[in-house]
């Protein structure tokens, strides 16, 4: 049948089972929006394209499906870029569409023209400029395939105005996409896996270091099996939170700059690190020359470029984490006698001691403390909520003092550290999982970076609970200035913050101010009972800090505890 480019766009989205599209229209996208008007796809009208991109990202993170967003040419496309870069750094499957000026005008500095494929080349997994409507369906199918396969990531398709209007033959396709130049290796080399098992069986002080790849591959169950049969303790990265149950004896919490003492000690003293879907980022290794000096390293990752990039690896295993762990566990089970339960007794004893001496802690006085708020949120939600964060201290407190037991329940901009990510991502998550409680744990700075999305929440009746940990400053930067720049608070203190309760009310949403410890529980109860977005404005101390902390440039076990 003959269809226009705009119609093909919608047909292909249906083919990919896209239920929700996030975005903002514009001149060059009019043909597409006209078709969308009566298409069976829910359109969420954002208030800023960055918001739309983060919504698609949040939707993707909780579902594991491809999140889809759309923006107009020029400023619409440039506004999307932060969202694309955020998704790219965290390997989130997304397809973004942008309008483009007509093909005949490209390169002429036409109205609202930007070189979108040029601008986004390094912040997408791949991108396309569609120059002929005949290629449109193929490109959209490829884009979805590329976004979700291998190491996932965002793919952008730039759609000129005339291509949307041009007509061509279209037939729906159930065929698998084949790209000769793109064949991700998912299975993992058996010989390498056998070598890994051998090394694991001989180790005396092993640690599993699990990252976002475990969540992305759906390998949490396999990770737990591996840890349980081998009795190896597990630490996760920020992106890996929830891939391993926090209530397990084997769990060490997060490692790295704001990781626990015991996770960092265990890494530094280990004789074997089993890296699973993680990438030895600089927030993890701290001073790289001093990182885990005695450890041999097994590295399981789908992306060969992640392996031996920052640290040299002894046994690389390229493959999908879930597939590789399945095989690895099979072999471990076959050789069970090499993995006697008590063989790591001494190591477990050591770790237990570290845990006792240096637990995560905070000052328990009658002040309203963010750590206490997080604990109360955990209590009120029984650990079942989806917690989305902004960036800064809020992000670290959210990570440290809420316990994560399930994958896809902790959403945060780990790689790029994008302030303003949390609130729109929480909206996307709530749309994907309406039956779940969704919290955005925010700083007053970050929340104001995409606060306009309150209108999106109001218009679409989306109930997200925004927890503003309001310290009236850019807390994390202020903390560094306090510790390393003699408290010279250069451009980090706010005056002029709005009344967040009134802001919420102005959007016809709810707002509550909490200034005392005893108000926390009732406020949370109230917020949870309300079926619309609530902004909880928690007034906390300006000079509250995140500890433990490993400052930049020192070894991972040179930790500032903070509390006297």
């Amino acid at each position: 049948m003959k269809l226009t480019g705009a119609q093909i766009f919608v047909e292909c989205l249906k083919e990919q089972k896209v239920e929700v599209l996030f975005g903002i229209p514009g001149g060059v996208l009019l043909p597409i929006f006209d078709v969308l008007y009566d298409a069976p796809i829910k359109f969420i009208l954002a208030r800023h394209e960055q918001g739309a991109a983060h919504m698609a990202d949040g939707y993707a993170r909780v579902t594991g499906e491809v999140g889809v967003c759309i923006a107009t040419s020029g400023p619409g496309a440039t506004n999307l870029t932060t969202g694309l870069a955020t998704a790219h750094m965290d390997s989130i499957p997304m397809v973004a569409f942008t309008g483009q000026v007509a093909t005949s005008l490209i390169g002429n500095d036409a109205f609202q023209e930007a070189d979108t494929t040029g601008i986004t080349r390094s912040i997408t997994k791949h991108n396309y400029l569609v120059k002929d409507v005949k290629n449109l369906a193929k490109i959209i199918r490829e884009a979805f395939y590329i976004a979700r396969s291998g190491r996932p990531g965002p793919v952008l398709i730039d759609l000129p105005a005339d291509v949307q209007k041009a007509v061509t033959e279209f037939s729906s396709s159930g065929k698998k996409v084949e790209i000769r130049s793109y064949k991700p290796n998912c299975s993992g080399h058996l010989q390498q896996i056998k070598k890994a098992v051998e090394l694991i069986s001989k180790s005396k002080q092993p640690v599993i270091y699990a990252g976002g790849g475990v969540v992305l591959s759906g390998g949490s169950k396999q990770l737990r099996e591996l840890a349980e049969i081998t009795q190896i303790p597990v630490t996760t990265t920020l992106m890996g939170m929830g891939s391993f149950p926090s209530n397990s004896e084997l769990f060490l919490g997060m490692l790295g700059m704001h990781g626990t003492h015991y996770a960092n000690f265990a890494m530094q003293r280990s004789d074997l690190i089993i890296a699973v879907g993680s990438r030895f980022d600089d927030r993890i290794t701290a001073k790289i020359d001093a990182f885990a000096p005695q450890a041999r390293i097994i590295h399981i990752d789908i992306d060969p470029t992640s392996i031996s990039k920052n640290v040299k690896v002894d046994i690389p295993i390229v493959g999908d984490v879930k597939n590789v762990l399945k095989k690895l566990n099979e072999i471990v089970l076959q050789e069970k006698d090499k993995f006697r339960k008590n063989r790591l007794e001494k190591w477990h004893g050591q770790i237990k001691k570290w845990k006792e001496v240096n637990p995560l802690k905070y000052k328990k006085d009658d002040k309203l403390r963010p750590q206490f708020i997080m604990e109360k949120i955990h209590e009120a939600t029984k650990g079942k909520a989806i917690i989305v964060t902004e960036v800064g201290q809020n992000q670290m407190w959210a990570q440290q003092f809420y316990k994560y037991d399930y994958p896809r329940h902790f959403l945060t901009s780990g790689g790029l550290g994008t302030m303003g990510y949390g609130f729109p991502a929480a909206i996307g998550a709530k749309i994907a999982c309406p039956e779940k409680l969704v919290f955005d744990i925010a700083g007053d700075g970050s929340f104001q970076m995409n606060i306009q999305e309150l209108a999106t929440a109001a218009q679409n009746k989306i109930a997200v609970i925004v927890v503003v940990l309001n310290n009236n400053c850019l807390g994390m930067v202020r903390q560094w200035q306090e510790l390393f720049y003699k408290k010279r608070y250069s451009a980090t203190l706010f005056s002029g913050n709005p009344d967040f309760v009134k802001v919420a009310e102005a959007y016809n949403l709810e707002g509550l101010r909490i200034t005392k410890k005893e108000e926390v529980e009732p406020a949370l109860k109230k917020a949870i009972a309300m079926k619309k977005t609530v902004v909880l404005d928690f007034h906390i101390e300006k000079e509250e800090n995140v500890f433990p902390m490993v400052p930049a440039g020192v070894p991972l076990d040179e930790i500032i505890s903070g509390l006297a």
Partner: protein
Amino acid sequence: MRHTIVVLVENKSGVLARIAGLFSARGFNIDSLSVGETEDSTISRMTIVVRGDEQILEQVMKQLNKLIDVIKVSDFLNVSHVERDLVMIKVKANSSTRSEILQIVDIFRAKIIDVSAKTLIIEMTGNKGKIEALIKMLQPFEIEELARTGIIAMSRGMNKTKIENK
């Protein structure tokens, strides 16, 4: 270490920018880069000559492989192969110097492809060493313009840089 890297890519716009971007983003200087269609018109072949730290180069090779439009990447460092570079040199020539230049051209088995009252254009194919020797010999006559294609390379015998096993 100098590496000659041969990359087979989809013959599409944007591919060159992606590859150049990989090198430039890491501050890698490319000695030479040449691109052209292959026996299959949907595939282009790039020959990239770079110098750099082995570990970084290994990372770049992996990154090249990761690009969606890249079909195959081979490093010719330990592969028996031939390399050629084509150069065109416009050199000043008058009645008193012309015959001396012609002699040099002869010795190098180069070719004259253009003659004017004041200049000659000399074409030669060869490896880096030979081309540099020719340039050196011609410098005293004053080189007006010089253009090189950059190295292209091919493995010897039946070792084919084909598209299987990315």
